[in-house]
């Protein structure tokens, strides 16, 4: 083979690989990027504003953590062809099944409310009234799923995932000091010592990295996409790519707020965008658009998670490949979740701050259970066969799961009792 033939051969091999990936990409990428939802963006913005670039190293560490947990859902979904809700009912019986399903419903609905809070706050910066935002968002989200094809939904949602990268140009616009980022951000350190405030933000960052809905969502999406056992390596790769982007976005948000708002106490990403609009209008605009997109992605994925979970357990048709008349309850559940969560934001005097805090507490009741079930199922040879956890998987996953349970519990408890950790 001459040189040109070799180059052409390698080029077509790479193109073919990319084509296969684009065909199989989706659940991992979407779940990871949607993980940077409105609450996540707020946490990163607050972290950057409070501690500058100092905690970038910590966010980088959270990438593999998210990957190891989510990768298990790929294997479980591809092997069992069941969503997580159905898997829990089937394996552990109705007590744990109902507990998980009802807890998931409550925590997901409350999280959706926080996504609408983020979306309405973001568009309010541009003078768009919340009622218009909620109405348009619900209609668009309904339109996206009504195509009757999982593939269409997935590719449209992936386009929204691309918008999440808007924080990269925002960070470039603020001209951060690269040497400062490398010096302060990459080497592990605890700025100002390990105090209560730092601990709370570390816990918040871990809390936003793994949420209960993510486990249910990715497993159901893998099933709906009809991924087979042979697709598991691609599903894992998709999850790696997603984990990379979720960390990338988080780091760039920290760079933006760490450069422009360093030393400020930020309560929400919308507040950060509002402050920036005064001094750096373009950056403020990008942050607001990013916040809206984050809330949008979060809401659409979480609403679907509920519909899938109920469909699996109640035996309704529960696939995006069905038309409305074929999967009526699936779509009704999706629509009702969105419209009620959006409606709450429009109620004058609704306790939105309380709801935002309550999400963390309720999530703590479900996350440990979902993770423990995941580990037990992945260790069952009868269910998983050759895809069961290896010794290395177990060491990594059990360590991560125990750490997540401890830290998320402390986070939930410190939300209930704010003065507990000083």
């Amino acid at each position, binding site marked *: 083979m001459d040189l040109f033939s070799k180059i052409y051969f390698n080029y077509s091999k790479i193109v073919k690989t990319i084509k296969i990936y684009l065909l199989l990409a989706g659940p991992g990428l979407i779940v990871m990027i949607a993980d940077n939802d409105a609450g996540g963006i707020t946490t990163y913005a607050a972290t950057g504003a409070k501690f500058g670039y100092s905690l970038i190293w910590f966010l980088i560490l959270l990438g593999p953590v998210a990957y190891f947990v989510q990768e298990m859902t790929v294997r479980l979904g591809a092997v069992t062809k069941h969503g997580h809700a159905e898997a829990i009912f*089937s*394996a552990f019986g*109705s007590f744990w*099944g109902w507990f998980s399903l009802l807890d998931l419903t409550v925590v997901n609905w409350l999280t959706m409310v926080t996504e609408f809070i983020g979306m309405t706050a973001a568009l309010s910066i541009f003078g768009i009234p919340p009622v218009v935002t909620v109405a348009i968002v619900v209609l668009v989200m309904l339109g996206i799923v009504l195509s009757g094809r999982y593939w269409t939904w997935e590719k449209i949602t992936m386009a929204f995932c691309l918008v999440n990268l808007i924080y990269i140009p925002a960070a470039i616009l603020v001209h951060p000091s690269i040497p400062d980022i490398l010096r302060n951000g990459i080497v592990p350190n605890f700025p100002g010592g390990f105090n209560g405030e730092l601990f709370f933000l570390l816990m918040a960052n871990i809390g936003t990295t793994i949420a209960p809905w993510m486990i249910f969502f990715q497993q159901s999406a893998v099933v709906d996409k009809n991924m087979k056992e042979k697709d598991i390596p691609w599903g894992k790769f998709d999850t790696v790519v997603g984990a990379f982007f979720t960390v990338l976005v988080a780091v760039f948000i920290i760079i933006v707020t760490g450069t422009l708002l360093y030393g400020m106490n930020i309560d929400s990403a919308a507040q950060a965008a509002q402050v920036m609009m005064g001094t750096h209008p373009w950056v403020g605009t990008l942050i607001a658009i990013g916040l809206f997109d984050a809330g949008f992605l979060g809401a659409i994925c979480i609403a679907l998670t509920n519909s899938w979970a109920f469909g699996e357990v109640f035996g309704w048709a529960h696939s995006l490949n069905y038309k409305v008349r074929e999967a009526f309850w699936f779509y009704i559940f999706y629509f009702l979740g969105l419209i009620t969560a959006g409606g709450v934001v429009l109620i004058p005097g609704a306790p939105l701050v309380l709801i935002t805090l309550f999400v963390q507490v309720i999530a703590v009741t479900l996350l440990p259970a979902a993770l423990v079930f995941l580990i037990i199922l992945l260790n069952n040879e009868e*269910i998983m066969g050759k895809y069961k956890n290896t010794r290395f998987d177990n060491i990594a996953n059990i360590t991560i799961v125990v750490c997540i349970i401890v830290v998320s*519990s402390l986070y939930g408890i410190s939300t209930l009792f704010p003065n507990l950790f000083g």
Partner: protein
Amino acid sequence: MEALERVFGERIGSIISESTGKIRSINQKYATPTIKLSGGAKFALLLLRFYLIFLVVLLVYKFWTVIHGGA
């Protein structure tokens, strides 16, 4: 069934009775766990129960202190 229909009206009554019937059938279908649990798994589930009871107690305590004007 008839009592439900008397209280809630025919349509809503039948939806409620259909739903309770469905829930009953789900409970029957998943009455017994299908996987054989190892000792470690049983222990993990036991810890999970204690953990959840602990969280419920905390939530009730917080609720009680809020109602009585505490933190």
